[in-house]
Each structure stands twice: as C-alpha cells, then as structure tokens.
C-alpha cells in the first residue's frame, strides 16, 4: 500500500495522484511553513488528514485544531510575528467567526508571512450559505490567489507563501469545494529539509503593533501600499494565463473552477473566444486586464457567485475610457450555484446565443427518483434522543437547532429543530424567542464541539440575563460531521493526550444551576429529564450523551476478535405498528409491501437502541 505520509515527505521530485487538499500539504512542506492551524469544516478537513499521515516526529511544522477559526487565526498570527511562516485554513463561513482578527491582519507587520487558506463552497454543498469571501479580501486589503485544480493549488500556495514572506503580510489562497476535492496526477518538486530557525524574532522596533487612533490610520496606509505593490507583481505573474484563440471579437475573463468548466464547454464550440484566466483575483492585474479588454469588442466576465471581478473590470475600463462592451451578470440565477460546465453553458448561451448554437434542452426523463436527504447513521445517539425528546414536548413548543450532525433532526420523522443560523447561535436565538412568551416552551440544541467553538457566550448570556430556556447539549464526544476531530472534552488533541475539559464543569463554571445528564439510549429517562427541565422556570441544560456510533463502530471493527451483531425481528410478535421504521426511523428497518418489517443486514450495527421503541417487544437483542 502506498503511504501518504511517506509520499508527502519524499525529498526527490515525484509524481502522484492527489486531491487538491493533499497537494496543498506538500506545498506547505516545500515552502518551509512552520505553523499550521485550523478548525474543521468542509471542504478543508482532508488537509488535516494529509498532515496526520506524516508521523508527528517527522512533521516539519506544528499543527493544531484550535477551538474555533478565530483562535486558529490568532495562533497562526502569533507564530508569524515571531518570524515563522504560518498558515490557517478553514471553511467559507469560518471566516465570519475569524473576521474580527482577520480584518486586522493586513494592518500588521507579519514578520514570517501568513497564508490564509479558505474553502469556499459555491453551491452550498455542505454549508448554510454560499458566501463569496472575496468580499472579505476587499474589505481587509488582502490579496487573493485562486487556483483551479490540484496542480495549481500546489503552485499557488508556494507563490502565496513567497509573497507573504516578502511583504510580511497575509495572502489568501481561495479554494472552492471541487478544487479542494479534485484529484489528478501532480508533478512535485524536490524538497530540501532545512534546519529550522526557532529564534523568537518578535520585536517592537518601530513601535509596538497596537493599531489605535492615528496608529490605525498609518497601518491602513501601509496595508494599502503593500496591496498596490502586490498588484504590480500580479501584472508580471505566470499565475495569470492567456488562452489566445485569435478571436478579437469576443473575450472572456474568468478564474478557478469556472475556467475548467468553460474549457469543457468550448470543446464543442467552433468559435472559441480568447480567455484571460486570472490567478491573482485581488487586486486584479490592471495592466493585463486593461490590455485584454481593449483588444476585444466584447468581454464576458465569467464569475461564480458575486459580481466582484465584474465591478473591478468595469471600473478600470471606465477609467481607461475603453469602448469595449463588458458583459457581466444579468439575472439573479447568475449569482447562484456552482459554475459547473452545465451552468457555464447556460450562462454563455444567454450571453452569446449564436456562439453555442441552440442547446439541446436536457431530456426531461419521466422517472421519479425519491429524494435521499442525509440522515443520522444506524445506532446514532441523536436518533434515540430526538425520539425521546419529542415525547416531552408539545406541538406548539419551539425547537432551535445548531450546526452539527444533530441538525439532521429537523427532517422527518423527528422534525426537531425549526430554525438554525450558524455555529453557537441556538441559545441566543432561543433566548429571544422566549421574550414575552409564556405559552410555548423554547428548547435549543447544540453539539459538544460547537459548545466549545462558539456556544459559551450564548449560554452565559442566558444565565446572565435569566432567559428561561432549555439547552439540550447533544454530546457525542467528537466533531462528528467533519470526520471525527477531537475537541476539548475528549482528552486528546491532534498531537497527543491532553487534560479533558468536561462540559458539565464548564456549565457549572458558567453558573448554570440546573443540569441534567442522561445517556440517550435511556429513552424514557431522557423524556422525563427533558420534561423536568422545560418546566423549570430558570435556564436549564440537559446533557444528552452517547458516543458517536459511526466512530465507535469503526474503532471496534479494527480490534481483534470483533464480532458483527445485528438485531432480529420476531415476526410472530410483530403486529406491524411500524414504530421502528416510521417514528424511530432507523434506516436499518425495511418495510415490505405486505407491511412486514425486516432488518437490512448492510446497515444494522446491533446497537439495540431500537428495542425499547417496539410496543410489542418484537425486536430481539443481537445474538
């Protein structure tokens, strides 16, 4: 078997099939990055998987999963002002959490340089929105490089690292979901390990780095000056690419994955426009863009999500007095969704209908395929929890979800969680819902990783301002949705054992007076506890605990002597009330046309959490 860690640390040049996220780690190694931090979130967690494949003793840099993206950014910044090249990575909405720190970065003299790797998610594949983080780049005067495939991820990171070092500034490497996860063969360069310089080089020569009053303005001036310098570099950079098809009538300016989609679409088109593919997307390389616009009659800005490049190009064309027709976004649909080849084909069809010819409308096939939304795994403690909690609440009560696997409880048959915003928002939203409200109980959910990430301020506020809501803390002992990363209550961090910080102790420390704890497999007990909690006139917390069974089962399977177990249904006892398959809703249960229920042997893990849901006790313990 090929070992990823050995491959990543190879000293000679080599070729290998890798994901964008893996190529990034090789780039970090070659660039001499010393500190890397993160908080898990799709599409970026596989970066940490690649890092983990290198044994800790061989890893040329320090890595940690911090408690949230803001802290991760601060740790990387702190290391960088000591002279170490650092990198922080997280998902799109992670930048919202990190933003208070992030917007300051460009004001600072970052001695070692810092690369901020963002995993944006056009199409909202695994996020609550599809925000375009180039807005943050504009707001914070931070340059952005945007690769389109794994090879470019590797090359662009190294360029970002080099710029960050040269100008002592932050550089954004903006990835999107299908750039992170794309796989292809990449040719890597040699890597020469250097003896790292651990000297803490932080200094206050030229004054302390405290951006207050006039100091802030001076630092802003410096940030703008650096941005302009990077813009000049951008004009000379090989990260930008001209595809010259000798078409002076039509040109397209694009970047990232939309460029690849465009190239696929043009394979079937005889009139191929010229293409300017930008690697530097902020600040735009003015000279190159101006020359491209000037030399074409019409230029289409082919841009995923928002109209940021379009505004930049239109503004510089106006300043230069260019007569070229610049075609940007039209209807709202052009702002929405990932620019796959299908989407690009539609967008170009609207722009230049004659160029693509009539598109054959996709055949409308008569088959109806049932939806298959994501759902909780067989044996999931959250399923037991929702099944039990539902019994403690009335249909009028209000349930607020948070981010995590438990969010999936909003789907039928549970329908627990009627509103959700972002990490750690549920106690605050619930507190607001409880104002002037004496008739409908408010129950808010939160997972344990989120609790440490952004949950504490909302909980403390509920205590401080005496909001009479109930928080149900869905503790599964891991960060499950993103691939089982450890958090502060686990007793293990990325690098080894650490002290556990039990959630109960934290809650007690925050001043929560009413705390109930129960394993979610004890369903009737959980129902009782929730009834007690919601009837308590003060803020209360129910810790609904059960280990993530996906993680638990995976670990159990690896142990010698593991015996797979499954429950059985005694067809003589079963009177087909269908509680197991419809209300409890474990995907293991299969309903036959004659009403009979059986177990799907592909799915059952023999956890037995379903036994108690059967009114006739027809489900038998795993043998």
């Amino acid at each position: 078997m090929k070992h990823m860690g050995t491959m990543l640390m190879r000293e000679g040049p080599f070729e290998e099939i890798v994901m964008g996220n893996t190529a990034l780690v090789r780039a970090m190694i070659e660039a001499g990055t010393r500190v890397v931090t993160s908080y898990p979130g799709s599409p970026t967690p596989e970066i940490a998987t690649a890092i983990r494949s290198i044994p800790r003793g061989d890893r040329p840099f320090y890595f940690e999963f911090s408690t949230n993206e803001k802290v991760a950014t601060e740790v990387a910044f702190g290391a960088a002002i000591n002279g170490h090249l650092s990198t922080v990575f997280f998902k799109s909405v992670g930048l919202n959490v990190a933003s208070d720190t992030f917007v300051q970065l460009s004001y600072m003299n970052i001695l070692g340089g810092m690369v901020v790797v963002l995993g944006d998610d056009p199409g909202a594949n695994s996020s609550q929105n599809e925000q375009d983080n180039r807005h943050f780049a504009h707001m914070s005067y931070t340059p952005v490089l945007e690769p389109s495939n794994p090879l470019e991820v590797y090359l662009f990171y190294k360029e970002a690292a080099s710029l960050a070092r040269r100008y002592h500034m932050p550089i954004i490497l903006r990835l999107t979901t299908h750039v992170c996860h794309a796989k292809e063969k990449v040719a890597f360069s040699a890597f020469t390990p250097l003896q790292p310089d651990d000297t803490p080089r932080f200094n206050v020569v030229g004054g302390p780095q405290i951006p207050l009053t006039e100091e802030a303005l001076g630092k802003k001036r410096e940030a703008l000056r650096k941005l302009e310098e990077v813009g000049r570099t951008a004009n000379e950079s090989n990260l930008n690419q001209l595809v010259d098809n000798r078409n002076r009538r039509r040109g397209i300016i694009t970047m990232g994955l939309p460029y690849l989609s465009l190239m696929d679409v043009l394979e079937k088109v005889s009139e191929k426009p010229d293409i300017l593919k930008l690697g530097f997307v902020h600040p735009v390389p003015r000279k190159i863009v101006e020359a491209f616009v000037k030399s074409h009659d019409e230029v289409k800005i082919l841009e995923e999500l928002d109209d940021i490049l379009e505004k930049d190009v239109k503004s510089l064309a106006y300043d230069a007095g260019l007569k070229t027709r610049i075609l940007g976004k039209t209807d709202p649909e052009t702002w929405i969704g990932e620019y796959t080849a299908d989407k690009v084909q539609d967008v170009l069809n609207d722009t230049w209908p004659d160029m693509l010819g009539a598109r054959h409308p996709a055949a409308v096939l008569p088959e109806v395929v049932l939806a298959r939304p994501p759902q909780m795994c067989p044996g999931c403690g959250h399923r037991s929890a929702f099944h039990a909690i539902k019994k403690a609440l009335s249909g009028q009560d209000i349930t607020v979800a948070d981010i995590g696997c438990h969010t999936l409880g909003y789907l039928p048959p549970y329908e627990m969680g009627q509103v959700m915003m972002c990490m750690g928002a549920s106690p605050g939203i619930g507190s607001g819902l409880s104002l002037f409200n004496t008739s409908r109980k408010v129950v808010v959910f939160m997972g344990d990783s989120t609790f440490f990430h952004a949950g504490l301020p909302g909980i403390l506020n509920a205590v401080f301002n005496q909001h009479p809501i109930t928080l149900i803390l869905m503790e599964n002992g891991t960060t499950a949705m993103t691939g089982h990363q450890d958090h502060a209550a686990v007793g293990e961090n990325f690098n080894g054992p650490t002290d556990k910080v039990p959630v109960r102790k934290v809650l007690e420390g925050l001043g929560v007076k009413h705390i109930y704890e129960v394993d979610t497999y004890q369903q009737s007990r959980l129902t009782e506890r929730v009834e007690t909690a919601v009837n308590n006139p003060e803020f209360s917390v129910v810790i609904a605990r059960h280990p993530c069974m996906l993680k638990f089962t995976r670990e159990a399977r690896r142990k010698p002597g593991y015996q797979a177990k499954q429950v059985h249904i005694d067809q003589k006892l079963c009177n087909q009330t269908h509680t197991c398959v419809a209300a409890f809703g474990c995907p293991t249960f299969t309903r036959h046309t004659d009403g009979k229920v059986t177990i799907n042997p592909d799915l059952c893990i023999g956890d037995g959490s379903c036994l108690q849901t059967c009114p006739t006790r027809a489900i038998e313990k795993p043998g």
Partner: protein
Amino acid sequence: MLKSETIGKYLMKPFNIYLIGVGGQGIGLLSEILLRAADYAGHRVKAVDTHGLAQRGGVVVSHLRLGDRVFSPLVQGGEADLVIALERYEALRGLKVAARDGGALVYYDTVWQPLDVRLNRAAEIQAADIHRVCAARGIKDYVVFHPALEDTRMQNTAVLSTIHKNELIPEIQEKHYKNAMEDLLQGSALKQNLKLFEGNG
C-alpha cells in the same frame, strides 16, 4: 503571464464515469481504484468525490473523467458513458441525472430504502423498473448481486469485478486494477478483495 491556445486535436474522446451510492457504501474507495487503474493504463484522468454532510446516509457521488482534453473533473448532465451505482435507487438516479443514451449502467442490486418508502409514502422500485428505463434508452445494464458476500463493505469490489470482466472502461486491464488495489489496500483486506475481484463477474 502564461500563454496558450485551445486549438488542438483529440487523442481520445473523453470517457466519463459517474459513480453514485449512499454514504457508507465505500464509493470513495471504488472511485480511487478506478482513478489509479486508469492512470496505470496510461489515461490522463481527473476525479472528484462528494465529502462532508451528504456522507451521512445521503446520496454520495464521485466523478471520473478520462481523456486528453478533459478540464473540469465534473461530468456534465447526460454525458456519462458509464454509470456505476452501489444501490438500486441510486442506479435510477444515476440514469436520470448523468447517463448518456446508449451508454452502460452497472449496479449492485441492494436496496437502502429512502425515507418515503420507510414512511409508506412511496412503493419500492424493482430491478425490472431499472431494466425498462435502460432498454428504452439503449443503455446496457449489468446487475451485480452476491447473496453470500462475507462483508457487505466488499460490494464495491464485486462491482469492480463486473466492470473488468465486461471491459466497461477502455484500455484498463486486469493488472491495472490489481496495481491500483495494491496501492490502496493491504494485508487481509487486499487478499480478500483480490480474491473477490478475480473470482466472479
């Protein structure tokens, strides 16, 4: 600035593969084996998998594109030459969203009932329904099912075996699939999967 042009000739028309299944069925491994086998066979190849949220019992998709002039790793709607599904409903979904008329479908005939079937809001589809759709569109369908499979997590290898035995992907030979499996598996897992791969089809 780098300069290039798109004018050029095909060495090989792109061959698009669309893999679909349910989170937990091992579609990631199957896709990675195909990707590496295609590379060993000398194809230029690009791929991309679903990660994150959808993996929890939802629809999981993997795209694989072979050819000299392939840019995005994503297969366009209705352009998959081969649809590989690990479940019956997902076979139908793959046919609907990705399959090209006249292409091929290979699927493992197990059912992970969607919620609406379990809630008795919809009836279960049958293998015959899939066959009817394929026949109407000139798609050749290959059904894989091994009732005696020791470990359900090896269904993907049973599918791989059928793909190989019927030469459903141009130019990939037995040794290429084996090399790919050796890159990704070891010990008893490798042995068991190789045995299944060679044994049936």
